Structure formats: C-alpha cells, structure tokens
C-alpha cells in the first residue's frame, strides 16, 4: 500500500465533513457505501503514521490527520463498525508520544486524552447519563442492555406488514424499514444486533418502499463469507432469496475453498458443505437448489475432469438429499421440481442410495441405470444427424445427474473387479460415460475397447507374480495420458482393494505403475474418496478394511 495521495486526502476530508455525525438516512447510506474503502484508507494512514519517527514528523507529512480522525471519531456510524474503530484508535495512539519533545506533541497528547475521555464517558445532563450513573452496572453492560432493548423494539416494529395493502389510502411505514436497514450496515457483525438483522432479512417485501438497501445486503453477504455473521438459518435463506449475488458469492466461496484447499479431503468437503448451509438451504428452498446447480454446471464445463469438483457436487447432493429426506414429512415440493431437466425414470434409480438397495441386486441396479443412460445417448441416431441442441442438453443433464449421484459409478467400478462379473460391458459403459461424456473426438467404441483392455491388463496383473512386464508398461502409459488417467486410476484402485490378488502383488503393482508425481497425487486423493465412501457403509468388511490400511501405507511410502 503506497503513501497517501493529495487527491485521496481531499476526497476523504470532504467525506468526513459531509458526513458529520451521520444522522440522516441519506448520509448514512453514503457512509455505508464507502465503509469498505474508508477502512482501506485508514489502514494506509495508519501505515504512514507507523513509519514516522515522531508525532511532529507524522503531523508534518499528514497535516490533515488530526482533523480527519477527530471528525470520524464523532461519527457513530463509523465508530460502530469494529474494523474502522480499531483503525481509528490505532491511528490516535500512533500520534501519542510517551516522551513529548515539543509543544506540538504535548498538545497532541492532550487532545487525544480529551478525545478518548469524551468517547468513553457519557455526555452529562442527558437521560442516558442519569440512567447509566445510577444503573448499578458497568457502563459497558448497561449500554449492551440498552442496545439489546433497542434491537428488540425495532425487531418488533419491523415485523408488521405493509398497511397500504389493506388500506391503500394510508401511507405505510415501509420506508422506515429501509431506514433501519441503512442504519444497520455497520452493525451486521454485532452479535446483539443479530435478531434485527435477521428480522430485516426475513421481512417479506410487500411494497417497493420497503426494499432493503443494497449496502445492507452487501455487508451481510460479506460478513457471512468472512464467517463473522451470527444469524439464524431462515434469515440466511431469506438473504439468498433476496440477492442472487449473495447466493453466487456463497457458492463460489464454497467451490474455491474446496478447489484451492490442500486439505480438501472427503471429510473436509463434507464439513465445508455443512458449514456453508447451502445444502440445507437448498432443501428448504427449491430455487436456491436450482441456482446452486446452475453454478455447478458452469464450473463443470470450465473445469473438465476435475475430481475435486466432482466430489463436491456429489457430496453436496448427498447432504441435500439427506436433509430433504429428514424433512420429507413436512410439505415440500416433489423431487421433479428439484431436477426438472431429467426424465423421472432415470431420477428414481439414481437418487436411490446404494445403501437402500440389497448388495445382491447392485449389479442389476447399475445395469438398469446404464441402460437408461445409453438410451438417452443413442436417441441421436433416431433424430437429426447433426447434434441437436436438445439432444446435447438431455445427455448433459443425464451425465450431470450421474455426477450428482456418483455413488453408483463407484459401485460399478467395484463390481467390475469381481471375477464373476456379468454384464461387464454395461458396467464399463457407465464408467466410461462418467469419465468421458463428450468422447472428446474419439469414437465411443474405441474408448470402450480401451476400457476392456485396461480391465484385461489389470486382471492379469492382479493374478500374481511374476508381473508381465508389457502389461505394467501398458498401464503406466495409460496413466500418464490425461485422457484416460482418471478412469484407469479408479479401476486400478478398485482392483487393489477388491481383487483376490495377494497383498504383495498389490504392493508390487502400485509401486511399478504409480511413477509420475501428478498421478501419485491424484491416486492418493481418489483413494481417500473411495475409503471415505466404504467407511460410511455400516457393515464393514474386515478383509477390505485390512487392504485399505495396506494401500494407505503403500501410497504413503511411494517415493
């Protein structure tokens, strides 16, 4: 941050003078609009003051500073904002000299002491002064209670609806709601003001006078993203219904935290989804669910094949379905409303969790899903030869639903390992579709034969030693190609966990094929996801558990 410029000084001095003590709604709104920038400027001033060797020097470089800080200290709208107030006080203390060397420094000290005294004590001969003096409480406690009372009175007042609806001739008080929202901008993070903030958000907008001010919505959204907001869930949902920007911000913040976090392990993703409250809000409000998924779709297009994003979407949908299931007893819209773009016959098998289906029938269930999806992708042939937009949309939506319900892809991969696997082609097709929905210019049949080839290699490799060298090389090559890497890795890990091959063979194969750093990294991540899913299963297989531990060790010990 650079030194303070002349134009900045002029701008902010003029603002400080204009704002005065910020008593009118229009001045408050202007202050609210500039609060973020003001904090930035105060920080800049603070840094300049900290660089000065003495108060005399500080005043010489920033001659406006005394008047500027003094004015802001008298603006309760600024001092109610925690960050601004902290910066203001720090600036003042930079100007205080423990050993004043000149008359200027002595005067500055005196001024700061007086200012702080005035800030800390109540103006005499006012009702507040009289009440606080005989309250038998510490001033902070008394003021806190007063604030709580004010908040409760205002919260009660704004609860009433618009009178002009029932009586058009009467002037409604909705404008006051707007004023309260303007006044509440610096208080959004104040825990005592929380009922009022919530009340404002939850108030139905019945008349155009009663719209909450933009600065308020923005302040609440930012505070939520910075985890500084104390607010109840219905109020947060109301915020997201009020403001699309705020909802987008919340979704993007969740996506960013998952994609950027080195700690984005499955359990962490679940925690992040839960903390974001987005899944819960989605279950309560269908439009929120639709918006969140719209953003997910856009992100999937942008970040093709990103496993973390897939995991996030999958986890989000699982949490959403869980909440929805818990509140099913109450009245809520049908599932079709949440997934309007996919056929109902596909929705039912995919939204059923594997835990709800007996293990013996998993194979049939997956084949059923696979057949339904194949039917959708093949429709093209019946229609126009060129890819119709409608067909593209149908295929994309079907694939998106598969990503949302990724459990069945995992089940398919797991089933493929079993030697007695029937309908292997159908399983392979599903896995292939999941990893390569667009074919990326390859012929589907070519990819399918690749899948079969991978399975053959792995099956032979896991039969036991000595390892056929050419197959090891083949798998290693396939892993290094970004086109097939994810698919091959998932198959490899599932073979490692579920095949009958010995532990030694398993270790041997892993250390021979997992060479590249990138591949090793993705392998570790994919493994954790699989393990997390298996650990969710109540009936834990002892053999699988022991293999999971071994593979964990192998992956950890790879060079």
């Amino acid at each position: 941050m650079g030194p303070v410029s002349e134009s900045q000084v002029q701008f902010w001095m003029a603002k400080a003078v204009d704002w005065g003590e910020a008593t009118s709604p229009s001045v408050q709104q202007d202050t609210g609009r500039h609060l973020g920038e003001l904090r930035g400027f105060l920080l800049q001033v603070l840094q300049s003051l900290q660089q000065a060797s003495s108060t005399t020097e500080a005043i010489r470089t920033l001659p406006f500073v005394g008047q500027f800080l003094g004015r802001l200290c008298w603006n309760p709208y600024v001092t109610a904002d925690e960050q601004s107030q902290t910066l203001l006080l720090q600036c003042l203390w930079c100007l205080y000299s423990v050993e004043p060397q000149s008359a200027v420094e002595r005067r500055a000290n005196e001024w700061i002491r007086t200012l702080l005294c005035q800030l800390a004590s109540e103006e005499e001969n006012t009702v507040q002064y009289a009440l606080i003096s005989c309250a038998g409480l510490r001033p902070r406690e008394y003021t806190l209670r007063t604030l709580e009372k004010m908040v409760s009175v205002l919260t009660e007042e704004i609860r009433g609806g618009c009178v002009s609806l029932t009586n058009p001739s009467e002037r409604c008080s909705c404008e006051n709601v707007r004023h309260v929202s303007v006044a509440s901008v610096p208080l959004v993070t104040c825990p005592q003001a929380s009922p009022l903030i919530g009340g404002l958000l939850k108030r139905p907008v019945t008349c155009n006078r009663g719209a909450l001010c933009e600065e308020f919505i923005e302040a609440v959204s930012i505070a939520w993203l910075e985890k500084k907001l104390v607010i109840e869930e219905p109020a947060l949902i109301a915020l997201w219904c009020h403001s699309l920007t705020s909802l987008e911000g919340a979704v993007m913040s969740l996506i960013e935290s998952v994609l950027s976090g080195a700690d984005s392990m499955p359990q962490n993703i679940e925690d992040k989804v839960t903390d974001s409250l987005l899944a819960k809000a989605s279950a309560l409000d269908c439009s929120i669910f639709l918006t969140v998924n719209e953003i997910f779709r856009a992100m999937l297009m942008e970040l093709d094949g990103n496993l973390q994003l897939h995991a996030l979407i999958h986890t989000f949908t699982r949490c959403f379905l869980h909440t929805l299931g818990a509140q099913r007893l109450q009245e809520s819209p049908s599932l079709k409303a949440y997934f309007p773009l996919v056929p109902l016959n596909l929705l039912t098998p995919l939204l059923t969790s594997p835990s709800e289906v007996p293990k013996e029938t998993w194979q049939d269930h997956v084949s059923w899903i696979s057949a339904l999806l194949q039917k959708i992708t093949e429709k093209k042939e019946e229609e126009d030869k060129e890819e119709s937009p409608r067909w593209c949309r149908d295929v994309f939506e079907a694939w998106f639903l598969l990503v949302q319900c990724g459990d069945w892809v995992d089940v398919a991969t797991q089933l493929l390992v079993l030697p007695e696997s029937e309908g292997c082609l159908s399983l392979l097709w599903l896995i292939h579709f999941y990893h390569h929905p667009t074919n990326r210019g390859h012929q589907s049949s070519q990819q399918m034969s690749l899948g079969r080839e991978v399975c053959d290699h792995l099956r032979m490799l896991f039969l036991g030693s000595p390892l056929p060298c050419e197959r090891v090389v083949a798998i290693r090559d396939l892993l290094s190609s970004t086109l097939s890497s994810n698919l091959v890795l998932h198959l490899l890990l599932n073979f490692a966990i579920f095949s009958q091959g010995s532990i030694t063979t398993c270790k041997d194969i892993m250390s021979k094929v997992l060479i590249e750093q990138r591949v090793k990294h993705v392998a570790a991540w994919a493994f954790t996801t699989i393990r997390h899913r298996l650990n969710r299963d109540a009936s834990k297989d002892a053999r699988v558990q022991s293999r999971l531990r071994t593979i964990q060790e192998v992956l950890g010990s790879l060079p």
Partner: protein
Amino acid sequence: MEDIWKNVESTLELLAVSQTKFVSEWDARTVDRALQWAQYCEHIYTRFHTNSVIRKALEKCLRDTNERLRITFEGYRDMPFSDTAQCRHILLITLLKNPATPNSVIKLLFKRHFEANGDTGQDDQNADVASLVRIRSACQVLGTAKFSRNVPGSLEFGAQVHGKMLRQRLDSLLSYPDNDVLARNLLDFVLQHSGGLDNVSYVIAGAVLSKNDISGGNVTEDLIVDWLRDHNDLLLNMCQSLPAGLLAELSERCTKFRLAYLEILKEWASHLEYDIIKELWQQPRDGGVSFKTLVNRFRSLLASSASVKADTEKELVDMKEADGGFEVMGLSVWTDLHQHSLKDLTQSQKGTSLT
C-alpha cells in the same frame, strides 16, 4: 465485615489520590493494583447491593469516608454507593482527565482498555472501553432510525427504550423488600441529572408504559405515581407537554395516574374564565392550559378503553351537575367541556388529537 469496610475505604482513598497531582508518581504496577482494588469494589457491590442490611452499613461507610476525603482533598468528588458498581471505569476516566497522569501510564491504559477485544466476552475483565464505545455508537445509530408506528402521539423510540431500562431497574429494586426509598432516590437522581423536566417526562411515561416482565401487580407504576405526586412540577409538566394520546394510554395503564391526571385537568378547568365579548373560555395568564387543549385531552380519554371512558364521562357529568347542571353554553365550564368533548368523538377516535 470489618475487613471489607477497610478495603472499600482504602479504594476510595486510592480513587481520591487518582484525582490529584500525586498520580504523577504512579507506574504500571500502581495502576494495576489500583484497578484490582477498583474491581474488588465492583465485586462488593454485585455481592451486597440487594442485601439491605449490609448495603446500609456500606452506605454509611461510604458517607463517612466521602466526608473525610472531602476535607482532605480539595475538589474531591463524592462516591455514592451505586458508583462502586463502575469503579474501574471511574478510575480510568479520572486518570485520563488528570493532566498529572504520566504518559507511560496513559499508553498502558490504552493497551489494556482501548484495544478491541471483540464483543463476545460478557465477562469484561478488562473494562473494554473500545467495545463500550462501539456499542454506544451502535445505540446512537439505531436511535437515528426514526421508527414511529405512524400513530400520532406515540412515544418516541429513544424515550421508549430509556423508559424500559428505567422500568427494569425499578422493577428489580422493588422485587426486594424495603427498597421503596432506594427506588425513590433513583427517580430523584434521574430527575436531577437528565437535563430538564421535558426529558424526564418522556422517560417516566416510557417507564410506566413499558411491559412489566418480572412480576404482576402495579407496584412499580404505583410507586412512580406516588413519587410524581411528591414532585408536582414534574407531574404538571407531564400533563402539559405529553401528547393527549400518550396521556390517555398512561391513564389506561395505571389507575393511580388516571386519578392524578383527572385532578389536574379539573384544576386547570377551574381556572378558565369566560370572556363574554369573545364568547370564549380564556386561559389564565399565569399558567394552566387552554380550553381547546382541555377538550382534546378529555376527548382522548373518552376515546380510550371502556373503564377510562366511563371514569372520564362520570367525572364530566358529576362536575357539570355540581356546577349547576346547566344546558346553556357559556355559563359553566363543565357544561361546555362536556358538550365539546363528546362532540365529534368519532373523529378523535381516529387519533387526530395531537395536542
């Protein structure tokens, strides 16, 4: 107990010294000790303020010590019992105000008490002034959010909140036995230090109208009205300056107030004189209220609840009968008030009576 008196006495001495030039010899350690003693006093207050026996003894101890210190230190400011609840804050302000306080001490005070610690801690171990300033600013900002219920003459937001706070304090005092005197002292203090009768009028109205959360009964309201009767200038000011609708609301809430209010209205009416030439009832030069104001106030009462309406009507009829029961205008003020007040009652029910 002896020890407690001694300690409180020493703390008062310490606070007295903090107002003098001797404070220039204080350092970080002295300030810490002083703040600890101040906190001790706060603790004593919290522990014993509801125990009337110990409180009386403590008050006596404070009185004696204050007297002694007043003789010793020029310009000494007395420390009443309620102030011991905020000893640290008082010490802090005194040190900031005292030019003899060393700069190093001031810097220390800043570090401890002015640096933001967040609003989460209810404990307030450090007498967090930054947080106090912030919360007070929040109150000021919300106070500017003018939210009237669009009902003419309703209580203003600030007065409503102050009234609630005063009411809560009175309720809690009166929930212990033998505390009437304390409650009255409290009201006396508020009357003296609130900056004028008008301010107090609204706060008292707010206190009467504030919902009683703690206990049933009208103990607090009755005490307030009894106290008001002992402070006639304030009572008169209330009846004169508060809006008619608010006074009717007070009369509805509290029977004792209703009686006092009706008495004052009668008193004012009795002072009106009829000007035969202008054919008007004239307000005396030395106070009282106009005929029009009286009519408005009666109308408001008549538009109020059934019991208030019945009482007011009965009062008007009784006065009219006692005054001769005339039906002709201009002979008895009560005949005229009765007639005017009942006229257009429906209009006043809509809440048009503002004065």
